[in-house]
């Protein structure tokens, strides 16, 4: 599937969820391509309404080439019940979304913002890969989840 078709398919999935209950906990990465500001990935989470928290660890694949990783626009639009953090620790981007009361994440698409990679080596960020995704239920057990759109799941 080429990038255009994938974006269309994702948009189709979004509209489908408006009409029917979400069926999966999916982390969707959409590669915005290489532009002036570097390469930006948008991140969305397709929630089935049963999870309360998310941990995603993302290998941006370019840090060793001196790329700058910008997480300032990541997890900035979460539901009011939840808080989050998005940190680049020098090895990977770690996204945490959680609730102090373990409120459920609403069913449907949740905007997790964008992660951008700029500077030398930014092009290598096309190999961005989610190394770990955990979606937690309120009883602290892990729910089934999947990744769409990273280098391992294109």
């Amino acid at each position, binding site marked *: 599937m080429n990038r255009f078709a994938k974006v269309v398919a994702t948009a189709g999935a979004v509209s489908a969820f408006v009409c029917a209950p979400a069926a999966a906990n999916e982390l969707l990465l959409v590669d915005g391509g290489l532009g002036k500001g570097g390469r930006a990935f948008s991140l969305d989470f397709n929630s089935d309404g049963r999870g*309360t928290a998310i*941990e995603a660890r993302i290998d941006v694949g370019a840090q060793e080439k001196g790329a700058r990783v910008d997480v300032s626009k990541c997890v900035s639009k979460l539901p009011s019940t939840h808080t989050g953090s998005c940190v680049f620790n020098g*090895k990977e981007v770690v996204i945490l979304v*959680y609730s102090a009361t373990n409120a459920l994440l609403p069913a449907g698409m949740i905007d997790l913002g964008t992660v951008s990679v700029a500077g030398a080596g930014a092009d290598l960020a096309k190999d961005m890969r989610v190394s770990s995704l*955990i979606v937690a239920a309120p009883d*602290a057990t892990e729910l089934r989840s999947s990744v769409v759109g990273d280098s391992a799941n294109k």
Partner: protein
Amino acid sequence: MKLRTLVIAMSAVAGMSLAPAAFSQTCSTAAWGQGGNPTVTPTVGAPVPGGPLATPTAIPRYSGRCGLRAPTGAGNYVQDSSPAAEPTFRARFYAFLAGTGTSNIFRAGNQADALTSITAASSRILVEWNGSNTITARGPGGSPTLTCSGLTAGRWYSIELGYNSTASALGSGVTGVPANSMRLRVQNETAAPIDCNQVSTGGVPTAAANNIDFVQLGNLSGGSSGAVIVDSYESRRTTHIGRLCRGDANNDSTRNILDIVAIANDFNTTVPTGLAGGQPDANEDGTTNILDVVAVASIVNSANPACPTP
């Protein structure tokens, strides 16, 4: 080889109603008092097993759902004589240090040492908290003396002891215990991190009278004006024990978002079954709250969130 893991166990006792409030928290010291030479009762005085939901006074715990509160004043402790003439011995427990008076909080003795004689002269190992900032461990008859200072009241510390009355070294490096020597290690990983690791050069002679036959833990003696809280006692004959994984709230040997959810459940719950079974008090301050969520988030955000090797 593991000798004993003596927990303050909890079981949920069903009431007559199906309502959650009908479940009561029952923490027990029944695992103590084992062994036979000397024969010991599980408790002396009135140590109180309990957890964060205990009433009227919540009892902090480091791991699992229960801790042990040894009330103000001497003579409130648990004891066990599972050790049987052990020439080598390792023990680790956690203590929530508080109070303003000196108290002896751990003792290991030989069968010839009177059970109620809580003095260095009649102990193989005696651990003292000075009520403000120092833990001291004394060997047979009071020597050698190992001291860790710079501690802070109102925090959990792991206290690990190594005791070797044989002529052969027990392990090596920072966890080893040289021949006829003793080691004291006191650690806290948070607000004022400390890793005090003291080892003697000799001082523990080979002698049957120095073999260990019983242990006591709690508020043994002294004039403490505050309760002593202890938890997570473990003993072995030879191998290093080490710390439990801080922040591994669900006790699965990893630290991730599931621990954050378990901690949130822990401080929001009103029933014992909602308490986390691992180590949710990630900032080691005696309570679980949003600060522990932040502490674990900080660990998970790091490049190395894995539990360290003990």
